[in-house]
């Protein structure tokens, strides 16, 4: 997958029942994305966190998902490898007629960084 072991690394995963899991991940500070986002001021690109959610959802169902729509994705705090070196990615995936609804959030013990509701195929 595109960003696994490049932008983030899964440290452990905990299944929470059918179609639901929490991935505890490290946000890798040496990823080259921070050369450009932003020079001298590393901030996690929100879209990389969307991709991370999609990849965790893919790990959960054992199939590489593609996002077809996003109902709403909220970025509630700025994330960076220094602000939040490790976070929990909580994902729930449900299949409905060949597509999947994905509900997810990224948070640590201090705060929530984003919430996501979308569909994948």
């Amino acid at each position, binding site marked *: 997958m*595109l960003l696994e072991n490049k932008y983030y690394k899964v440290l452990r995963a905990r299944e929470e029942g059918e179609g639901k899991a929490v991935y505890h991940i490290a946000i890798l500070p040496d990823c*080259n*994305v921070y*050369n*450009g*986002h*932003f*020079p001298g*001021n590393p*901030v996690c*690109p*929100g*879209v*990389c966190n*969307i*991709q991370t959610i*999609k990849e965790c959802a893919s790990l959960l169902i054992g199939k590489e998902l*593609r*996002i*077809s*729509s*996003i*109902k*709403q*994705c*909220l*970025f509630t705090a*700025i994330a960076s490898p220094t602000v939040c070196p490790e976070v929990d990615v909580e994902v729930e995936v449900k299949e409905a007629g060949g597509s999947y609804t994905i509900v997810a959030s990224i948070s640590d013990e201090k705060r929530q960084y984003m919430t996501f509701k*979308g569909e994948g195929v």
Partner: protein
Amino acid sequence: MTDIKNLIPQRSPIMMVDELLEAHDDVARCSLTIREDNFFLESDGTIAEPGVIEHIAQSASAFAGYDAMQSGATEPPVGFIGEVKRFRLFRRPLKGETLVTTITMGPTVGGVTIISGETVSDNETIATTQMKIYVAGE
């Protein structure tokens, strides 16, 4: 129009706009050609969906940067995505394709601007979305 580096704060490897093609009133158009070194390029020669979202966000950022420059700013403003809403992707763009995105700026309230974006490739709609963008320090 202007060197894109004067309009957006992002740098390689995550520059997702090549050019601001036009900007007037509340509408702007930006372009991006998907190259071999694109950060979001997958092994199948398409770019991952979040890459399209980033391209739309940076198109809005370039528009804001153009407006800021017209008002005398010397550095492009650093904007963050606050919300992505009603994003639809019709297909993933391919390496070699040139995306053209039209940004329509909505109202700005408390430093947060609502924008809508539509991305096309050769008149085929690739993606549509709404976003809220806020600028750091405002």
